């Protein structure tokens, strides 16, 4: 069986308000990945462009971005699965290469969110749920995740302080990530500030439990085994990819203390890679909210269901712990430019596996995992990467 490798990764800085257009933002990740791969763009024979629409005026952005990056006349495909768009794009790129249709494919994710107010952004994100039967009640992403936090608290006795520990960890590493939007330390005292991190958003979640919207782009270049070996000194291989979907309406779910798509896509990815959770040396999980990271660690088998709180209390998810999670600051500190997020997570794991992660380098990892969720567990992708 031939493999598919990652030969280049790139990312823009994630910022509060990008002073440019989507094509210019896309260029930042593109140029970073091209410099990383040290290839010329005639080698790229297809592009997959990923974002979530309605944050900017441009319709069908794939054509605009491909043109700006000099990637005509190669085919380009637009992929959207809300916050998991670029990991879905990676799955498409993998399939295109694995099928033999293309030998080198670029996955470029981007999002400019700053042109909207936070309330407008919440309204649009809310419409990523069921607009007929849920949105008329005034739903938004923090509220949906808050429903999960409430259920987790009721079932397992988890507390707001446990969730705060996750935010404190992301602050520890966000400070070290020069491309993160939030580069400050987070302390327990900050959650006592009722006008700051302690301000209630949707009970039991507080401001400190939520990631910040950001503008940003990410870029991943994948290639066939033959091409990857010829072009790249340290290719990182895609060992497993799992994907799943779940009912959009909360009424269609059978549990609220975990995400079914996380469990299902994780199972598929472990099976394809032929590994168990114990083999994972470093992970990036979708922590749009603190509770999301806690559920992810359980859904991926790093802890038993309900064991996520003990995992963070024992600091097992820190860089020196048994399963380092989101040691680049995660979505919470790095920021969450929807369409770029999955690619950024993949970039972090690729750098970890190459031993090029700098201040956040985990000791000698051989297998890494990326868990990227779209909507409120509506879509999920788990991707397992390895050095061999």
């Amino acid at each position, binding site marked *: 069986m031939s493999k598919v490798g990652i030969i280049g990764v790139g990312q823009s800085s994630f910022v509060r308000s990008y002073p440019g257009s989507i094509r210019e933002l896309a260029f930042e990740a593109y140029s970073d990945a091209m410099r990383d791969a040290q290839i010329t763009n005639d080698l790229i024979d297809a592009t997959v462009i990923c974002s979530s629409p309605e944050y900017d005026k441009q319709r069908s952005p794939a054509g605009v971005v491909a043109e700006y990056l000099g990637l005509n006349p190669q085919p380009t495909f637009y992929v959207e699965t809300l916050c998991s768009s670029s990991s879905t794009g990676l799955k498409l790129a993998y399939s295109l290469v694995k099928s033999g249709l293309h030998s080198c494919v670029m996955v470029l994710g981007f999002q400019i969110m700053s042109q909207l107010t936070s309330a407008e952004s919440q309204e649009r994100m809310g419409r990523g749920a069921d607009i007929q*039967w849920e949105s008329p009640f005034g739903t938004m992403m923090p*509220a949906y995740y808050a429903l999960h936090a409430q259920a987790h608290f009721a079932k397992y006795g988890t507390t707001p302080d446990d969730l705060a520990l996750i935010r404190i960890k992301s602050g520890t590493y966000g400070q070290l990530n020069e491309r993160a939007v939030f580069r400050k330390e987070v302390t327990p005292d900050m959650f006592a500030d009722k006008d700051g991190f302690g301000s209630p958003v*949707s009970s039991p979640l507080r401001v400190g439990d939520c990631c910040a919207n950001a503008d940003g782009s990410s870029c991943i270049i994948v290639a066939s085994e033959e091409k990857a070996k010829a072009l790249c000194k340290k290719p990182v291989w895609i060992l497993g990819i799992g994907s799943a979907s779940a009912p959009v*309406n*909360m009424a269609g779910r059978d549990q609220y203390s975990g995400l079914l798509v996380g469990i299902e896509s994780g199972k598929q990815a472990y099976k394809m890679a032929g590994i168990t959770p114990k083999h994972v040396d470093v992970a990036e999980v979708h922590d749009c909210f603190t509770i999301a990271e806690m559920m992810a660690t359980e859904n991926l088998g790093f802890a038993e269901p309900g064991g996520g709180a003990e995992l963070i209390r024992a600091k097992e998810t820190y860089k020196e712990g048994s399963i380092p999670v989101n040691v680049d600051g995660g979505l919470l500190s790095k920021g969450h430019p929807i369409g770029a997020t999955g690619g950024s997570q993949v970039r972090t794991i690729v750098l970890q596996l190459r031993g090029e992660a700098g201040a956040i380098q985990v000791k000698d990892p051989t297998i890494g995992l990326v868990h990227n969720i779209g909507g409120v567990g509506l879509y999920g992708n788990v991707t397992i990467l390895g050095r061999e």
Partner: protein
Amino acid sequence: MAKQEIDRRFNKFGTVSFMGVSKTNDFIDYLEQGKVMGTRCKTCGKTFFPPRADCFHSLTSGMEWFEVSGAGTLQTFSTLRYAPVGFEGDLPYTIAVVDYGDYKVFGRIDKAIASPDDELKVGMKMKAMAGKTANGQSTYFFQKA
């Protein structure tokens, strides 16, 4: 020939409705009569809430309405202190999921419950009631059963 009127009754659902046309628009009439209704497939008996016009299992559109009645179990809830555009006037408000066994219902908690975060507990019995939003739209909400 008289111009056919488009049925946009669903525009009357919730504080802000995002769509008007659905084959389940009778849901609104039932709400206005004080009933919260789901649909059941006449062929296979599968129940749907929210109601659907079509059954993916039987490949038919032969559905009958049934009333969401009696008590269900509160699965989870959250009180919003921040709202998306269009809902600011409703703050604070509490959303919830209630399990009726064969189906679950997503909606809001009755404003009559003054301190939902103190008064509500996951697992308690709740019932769904038809009513009106603050801006006079049709809706339903949960009360303690």
